[in-house]
């Protein structure tokens, strides 16, 4: 089983090299989608041995992942792993996330930050994440504890079917709703996230409401958000 690791990155020059070199121990190739960084993220990624796809304009996490998936689907890799480039996800836990796919137990594996040490996440983010996870769980009919986690593994067939449209943080729930509509199996595994005090990014309250709205809307639509070939 050949694995490609897709890392959406924005101004990650301090962490990207380490992430790539550690991730290369578990993945066959690394694909960094540089979302128009102002620093040396792209150069350092290339030096570290990754393939770099560079946006000339900033599109957001969803857009970067969409580009990453499109680029990876042009290759013949079987499993697509996604993780953040800011060091929040630990590369040594890649085998944990890949495990359900390797054992054929799931088509989508989510590294949940709530199954192990949820207190590490800042309180406000934890509350928002819980609310969105409940909404996503109701939408897909499967209990999900961390619907917004970017540490995931997908079987190739899932991404050939589930083409997400969101350019922002809504992609996370959108893909899960689409995968469920395609009868793909979703499983969570516990991972430990690292939160650096000065580098707290991620969805805000406005994003939270947008995710909630699009999840409800996506569930109500007969055909889902968008399905078909990329």
């Amino acid at each position, binding site marked *: 089983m050949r694995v490609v690791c897709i890392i959406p990155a924005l101004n990650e020059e301090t962490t990207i090299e380490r992430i790539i070199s550690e991730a290369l121990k578990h993945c066959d190739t690394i694909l960094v989608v540089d979302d128009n960084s102002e620093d040396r993220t792209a150069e350092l990624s290339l030096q570290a041995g990754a393939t770099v*796809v*560079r946006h000339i*304009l900033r*599109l957001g996490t969803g*857009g970067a992942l969409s*580009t990453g998936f*499109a*680029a990876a689907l042009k290759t013949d890799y079987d499993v697509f792993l996604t993780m953040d480039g800011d060091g929040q996800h630990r590369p040594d836990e890649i085998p944990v996330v890949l495990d359900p796919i390797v054992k054929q137990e799931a088509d989508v594996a989510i590294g949940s930050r709530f199954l192990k040490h949820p207190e590490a996440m800042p309180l406000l983010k934890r509350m928002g994440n819980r609310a969105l996870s409940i909404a996503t769980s109701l939408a897909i009919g499967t209990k999900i504890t961390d619907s917004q986690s970017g540490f995931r593994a997908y079987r190739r067939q899932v991404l050939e079917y589930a083409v997400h449209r969101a*350019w922002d943080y809504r992609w996370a729930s959108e893909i899960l709703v689409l995968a469920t509509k395609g009868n793909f199996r979703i499983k969570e595994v516990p991972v430990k996230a690292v939160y650096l005090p000065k580098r707290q990014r991620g969805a805000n309250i406005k994003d939270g409401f947008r995710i909630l709205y699009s999840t409800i809307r996506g569930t109500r639509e007969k055909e889902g958000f968008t399905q078909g070939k990329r």
Partner: protein
Amino acid sequence: MEPYEIAATAFGIIMLLFTTRELIRRRIGLLQYSLWMAVWVALILVGTVPQFYYALILVTQALGMLTPIHFVTTFSILALFAATYVLGKRIAELNEKVNKITQHIALMNTNNKKKKDRHS
């Protein structure tokens, strides 16, 4: 003519000419042109024939409004809301296109680079 009438007429004529030039250069569509033309013609009429404004009393009374200014402000606000909605929709569509183009360029550049690397 009062100073405000001269200013309104002059402004209306300049904008009418400018809008017509934009239509000839195909920078605006016919629908947009028609809407702006209605505004500029009304402005010129208010400047040159102030009685035109009072003629609106018949329309405003028929609509149950007290004075012509109620008519003008109400419909101007409604027109602005409609314009804002249309512009917002257009911006969202353009944003989507820009995003797709950005993605396409990124993928194309990567493919070209790979081909170049293979040849060298």
